[in-house]
């Protein structure tokens, strides 16, 4: 009996895992084909930006969430470039080339297109869950 319950749960887990891999993202148009974005993502990990910054609220707490930084009209591309290249009192400069900085900016612009980090109040359903449009 115990083995049957275990086996049933495990099969359900495998099926659910496959479904998640295939259908978790229904937005087919955001498929990445830009090498600059891929390079930017790689640099994001190599420089360990996730230690201090969040994307969709996941990551470190030292700096701001950068999911939608690319759409912030008060910042802009030039501001981002200067910030990443030279750092600030709190953020160290990583000695990146201009090209590398551009890759990171391209990556952040791509992340921004995937959605909003903060869930709007109107998306909260009476049952307590969210209804976010994909």
């Amino acid at each position, binding site marked *: 009996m115990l083995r049957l319950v275990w086996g049933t749960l495990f099969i359900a887990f495998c099926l659910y895992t496959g479904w998640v891999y295939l259908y*978790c*993202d229904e*937005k087919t148009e955001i498929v990445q084909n830009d090498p600059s974005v891929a390079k930017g993502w790689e640099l994001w990990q190599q420089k360990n930006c996730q230690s201090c910054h969040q994307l969709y609220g*996941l990551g470190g707490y030292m700096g*701001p969430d950068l999911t939608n930084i690319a759409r912030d009209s008060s910042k802009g591309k030039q501001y981002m470039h200067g910030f990443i290249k030279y750092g600030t009192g709190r953020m160290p400069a990583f000695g990146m080339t201009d090209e590398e900085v551009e890759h990171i900016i391209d990556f952040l612009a791509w992340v921004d297109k*995937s959605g*909003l980090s903060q869930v709007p109040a109107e998306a909260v359903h009476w049952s307590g869950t969210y209804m976010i449009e994909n």
Partner: protein
Amino acid sequence: MPLAIRIYTRFVFLLLITTLVFGMLSSWSYLYPEIFNRYLPFYQLRPVHTSAALFFIISAATLCIILFNRDTLGRNATSGRWEQLFIFTWIATILVIFGYYGLKKFGGREYWEFPGWLAFPLLSSWTFLMIGYYKGWLKCADKKPLYIWMWSTGILFFFLTFIEQNLWQIPWFRQSFLRELTVQWKANGSMVGAWNQMVYGSSLFLMVMISGDKSIARNKKAFFFYFLGLTNLMFNWGHHIYNLPAHGWIRHISYVISMTEWLIFISIIQGFKNKLTEARKLRHMLPYKFLLAAEFWVFANLTLALFMSIPAVNRYTHGTHITVAHAMGTTIGINTMILLGVLGYALDIDNKIGAGRKLFIRSYRLAQGSFIIFWLSLVLAGILKGYRSVTLNITSFQEMMEPVNKVLVAFSVAGIGVATGLIIIVIMYWQAAGKSQSFVKVDK
């Protein structure tokens, strides 16, 4: 005691000391980055702290399993050769990982920030452990107690989730940011469940040993809660990514499954009276003190988790220090306490401590008292951040964090107390491990 076990035990203690020292340094470098940035920047300290913490929990959990596995499955169940192979490759890979961190060479994902190729030696190492463990498991035809089920589940699911955690190295998963992030946190969420199975299994084993009551690892209620835990391991990882615009069903399934944890909550309240009687009887035992502390932190963190699992509440808590409170509460308050309890039992700490008993109890109290302040500071910091970002909609990060950082000073000061208390205890364990006949033998 075989050399491999002796080395592994000390390695586990070193990992805990590294976690605590680098945790302390990280918290101060978070508050005063201008001072630390030149030599020890936060982005370098944090991975050392988090990776050491994860490696400590996983290594200590496997050490407990290796120590007790042969006693519980039968002396001839396994030769121990595979376990030795696991121990040496595991230690060597972790040392290389810290070497990379020292050179500021990263490349992985959160908590596992080392370059991706290092996942392969870690996975090979785990495979050696699995071969050794399951060989013994297959030879044992008896009806197995629950802690064996839990150890077996934990070892298997760590293997599966570790592979899943590294799928980002396959380009197809990187084609979509939402897919990569979903799979990443699916793996991370389930992996926590996997090591919890190993840790809680050892906790159950310890309770059987010190109470002498074997029925607690064989009754129907215990198995019911095991399957509830397993269901949550498999399907309740979505709360990490509630705000992700991924498929809605991921959110809904996780929400529904997470609400089954209320049954655990109710069960803890129902068992409170029995727990008091048990505590009066066993409180003189040092390992039991750790189990008692873990019970308290299970209750506190489960309460937090239940609220965080409601998406409408998660909207305020996600990405705030409440998440850190939950992470620290479970890793320090639950996992570390249980592991120190089990290792204390294995090292027969009650009989070896001698004149150091008073210092041990004082250090224990210092760690627990400081940890309460530490945890509450994080909860308060999280409430402030959530309120200021979601309700007040403050967009300037500096302005939003101003009062939060003040609360985090209390957190950092309390962190010194937690680290001091636990480091003294670890040093006492280290000394106990050096004495002859270091590990107790257990009855099957």
